[in-house]
């Protein structure tokens, strides 16, 4: 975290190499996260690039005293993803452009269940389980009260559990 703050301070002053270090650290994770949110690999890459361009161009957006840089980066990415969805209009959210045979059966079950969740639920559970975000970081990234994080996570887990249990594979496994 201290390293992030130092790199950020140098970036703010126009040090492109410091910003490049932050980009290389967070951009791959952000792109994978955006793939889940957007369900489209090319869109995820575009939105990730736009997010970092925006952060570089407007260096006063992040206030270190208010939270972590990681939460700020993912929060900015989430907002751009929401913008991307708005531009898509009425397109269904659960787009998956990746061939099904690329995934193992179990992974596909979870990924399919994840794809059926609303965008915010997908963001929440991914950031918690994969990125290991704390409740405070989730609150900052998703702009919700910290007290709401626990109840929303429960709601998402329950949704996932129900979707997962309702799949034919799961029923077959349980019987």
């Amino acid at each position, binding site marked *: 975290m201290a390293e992030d703050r130092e790199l950020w301070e140098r970036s703010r002053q126009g040090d492109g190499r410091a910003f490049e270090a932050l*980009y290389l650290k967070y951009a791959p994770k952000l792109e994978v996260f955006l793939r889940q949110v957007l369900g489209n690999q090319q869109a995820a890459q575009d939105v990730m690039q736009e997010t*970092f361009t925006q952060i*570089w*161009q407007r260096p006063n957006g992040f206030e270190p*005293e208010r939270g972590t840089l990681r939460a700020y980066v993912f929060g900015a990415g989430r907002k751009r993803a929401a913008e991307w969805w708005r531009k898509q209009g009425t397109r269904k959210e659960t787009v998956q452009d990746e061939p099904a045979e690329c995934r193992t059966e179990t992974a596909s079950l979870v990924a399919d269940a*994840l794809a059926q969740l609303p965008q915010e639920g997908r963001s929440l559970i991914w950031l918690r389980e994969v990125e290991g975000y704390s409740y405070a970081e989730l609150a900052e990234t998703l702009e919700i009260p910290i007290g709401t994080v626990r109840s929303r996570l*429960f709601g998402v*887990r329950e949704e996932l559990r129900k979707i997962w249990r309702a799949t034919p594979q799961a029923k077959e496994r349980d019987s």
Partner: protein
Amino acid sequence: MKCDEAAEFVSALCDGETIPREVAEHIGTCEVCRARLNAYSAIGVELKRVASLEPPVTMKARSWEKEQRIRMNWWQMGRTAMKIPRFAFASMLALILVLSSSLVLVRARTGGGGPVLVLTFKLLPDGTTGDCIITTDGNARTNQCGYTPGVRGGMLGLKFRFVSRDGDRTQLGVKATYKSHSDTFHFIDDFKDVPERMVWVEPGEKEQIAVSGLGEIELTGEYLDHLPLLRFRPKEALDPQKNEFRVVAPVLIRGKEVVLNLSENGYSIDSGDPEAALMIYYPGEGRYLISTVPFEGAVDGTVKLGQIKFNLEGQDYLLLTAMPTTRSEHVWVSHDPQYKLSEHMQDARDDLPMFMVRKLSGLLGGQIHH
């Protein structure tokens, strides 16, 4: 305990959160809850596995320095972060501009990008505020300032040091500390072990600084083209505030004799205390106390703008000050010619003049604090 009541805590348990004892006991013995716990854990594990199966991200190198940076104005910042309809935001901006048009004129005259930086800090959330001024032109005599107000039963210590300037942005070295349960602050000793942190200040931006044991303070900055005459009160109006007692460059005249002239000694102001009083100490003259509330042994005096008239020991006195002192039309005055400052104030000297505005009870008590 029902499983429905425990369900949210099962989720919290997966996140490493502490849960109530009775819920933990229930989960330990309930098959349904344990199945839910196992399912949640399995989902978490599988999500991590899905993430591992994601195709690797190939990063293209970018030359960031070539990308233009944007300095947003207020309108752009508002548009970017807008959560209210744009028409409503535009109307709000127009209203603010109309209401503050006189303020805009004043700012334009003072020259917004001058070398003097007025730092305003506000304690969050209760709003104790103060100002401090430094210069950003390398003048070693004025390139740092400090402020040590009494806050929540203790003393807040703030010290700002000019480091560098880049356009409208100024980098400061900031020391911030809090002495709880104290009413004194030593500017050298109490700052000695406080680490300095670097903060950038820019007009229109708010910086938050955490102060251990107290909370956060919000820091803003504004440039002026000159050093204000009242260094720590740059926004002081001619009209005194309610419960404000202030004395700027006092001169005391007895009959036709100038008793004391402290026009070089600055000013002292107290805002908010209805019992504020002025103490003037002068070698050979002892102490004068002037209060906005009556006290034992004091005589009545009258106030008009920057003049206070009273009669003591059969002689007429006139206290002249550079600004109106108080909204009150009457004051009460006492004189103690035998008063020794060193007996009542730590580190004070009897051969130097001094004046200060403090709460009356604090000045009447045995020991006076700086």
